[in-house]
């Protein structure tokens, strides 16, 4: 064995170029399979068991620093915060009272109308473990995963509004795509007049856009956008964004509308995961071949 090894002067396996081609093709194949078919999720969660402890180790110094920081908080600061919170609490309590009255009234009206009840959604508190290290994406990782019954598609919010949506679940972690992620869309309604539209992320923190709104659309600066509940992914009536700047240029068919998220998308450490959204009935299948033609014909017949 020793001898055969010592005589292997030039035998080093395949040449670097051959290896380059082999591993590049392998990577491209994996990329294709992962991007198109998502077959590799189980392999990913299996490998994440190996990387998870390392990532926790790396995140530890930051957490430790925060703990040390909170330990050395000045007493005067604590007193001031405490006083502030007590004040806030009284204000909130009054509002909560009003809310309860409104809730009862609303429930009563809904019963009268025989409308399907909007259940209070069960929530789970989760903590942000770390933020995305990829500059292209706006994502977070929370410390609740498949072990805590988190499912992909659930909505994540803070105490004010929608923050994002769970897009991938690992055994002990889940990945949240923020609403500010590039091209992430949320179906919304303008709170003031019920105008339905879709708000898109722009890939930049603190920036959302409303596309495809005609110049004449009834929308003003300062309007609040809430989820419309259409499509069943987001529950009805969660605040999403506030309209910031509107630019109506007659040269373009659509107005340019900038919004900013209501929730602290890049601020908090604890977030809420909403679960138990009501299942909507299946959307009827559109006939593939000449669905468009039929609808046109149908429209022509009607008038």
């Amino acid at each position, binding site marked *: 064995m020793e001898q055969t090894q010592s005589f292997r002067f030039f035998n080093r396996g395949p040449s670097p170029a051959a290896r380059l081609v082999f591993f590049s093709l392998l990577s491209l194949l994996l990329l294709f399979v992962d991007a198109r078919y998502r077959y590799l999720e189980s392999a990913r969660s299996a490998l994440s068991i190996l990387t998870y402890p390392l990532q926790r180790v790396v995140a530890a110094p930051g957490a430790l620093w925060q703990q040390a920081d909170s330990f050395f908080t000045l007493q005067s600061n604590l007193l001031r915060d405490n006083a502030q919170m007590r004040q806030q609490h009284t204000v909130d309590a009054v509002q909560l009272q009003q809310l309860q009255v409104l809730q009862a009234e609303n429930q009563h009206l809904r019963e009268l109308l025989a409308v399907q009840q909007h259940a209070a959604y069960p929530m789970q508190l989760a903590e942000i473990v770390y*933020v995305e290290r990829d500059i292209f994406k706006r994502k977070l990782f929370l410390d609740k995963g498949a072990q805590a019954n988190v499912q992909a598609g659930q909505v994540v919010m803070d105490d004010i509004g929608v923050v994002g949506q769970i897009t991938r679940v690992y055994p002990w972690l889940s990945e949240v795509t923020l609403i500010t992620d590039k091209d992430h869309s949320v179906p919304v309604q303008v709170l003031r007049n019920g105008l339905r539209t879709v708000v898109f992320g722009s890939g930049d923190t603190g920036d959302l856009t409303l596309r495809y709104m005609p110049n004449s659309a009834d929308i003003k600066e300062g309007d609040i956008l809430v989820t419309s509940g259409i499509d069943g992914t987001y529950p009805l009536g969660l605040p999403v964004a506030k309209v910031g700047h509107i630019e109506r240029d007659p040269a373009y068919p659509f107005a340019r509308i900038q919004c900013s998220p209501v929730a602290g998308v890049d601020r908090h450490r604890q977030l809420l995961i909403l679960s138990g959204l009501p299942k909507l009935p299946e959307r009827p299948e559109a006939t593939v071949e000449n669905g468009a033609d039929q609808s046109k014909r149908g429209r022509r017949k009607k008038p």
Partner: protein
Amino acid sequence: MSDFPKDQEFLLPASNVFIVLSLLAALLLNWLPWSGIWLALRPDFVALVLLYWCTHKPYRIGIGMAWMIGIFADVADASLFGQHALAYTVLAFGGIVLHRRMQMFDLRQQTLQVFPVLLLAYLVYALVHWQLHGYVAWTYFLGSVASALLWIPLTLLLQVIRVPRPDSDDL
């Protein structure tokens, strides 16, 4: 730069444990919670350490190892399977091609040789992203410059660890 041991003979042979530990340390550095402008300026430590071993020990750390580390980076970064792996494969190939040339140069000249290879790896990563998502964040390429600037300190650090210590029992 003259007192710096340029010849391989002055260095201890790199043990497998040392190579693996250095790669692990680089992975951990990459996974620190970088954010904002620091994320754009973050040098890719894994790419640098891989390139160091590919240029200094091309028969120990090669394209296969680079590919495996890329897969781990993909899992940790939640990028698509093969995105980092493809970039690191190209990087390792560049390192192996360069490894004879590198021995003739001092560190400053090496930096100039290393930069295009790093840029190529960054380009591959961005290209895959562009193909799949249709846009590229240009600040991303700042990282390749930062990585190239880190080549000298990193090489010095890894060499210093490999310089034999004088034995106290000798005299």
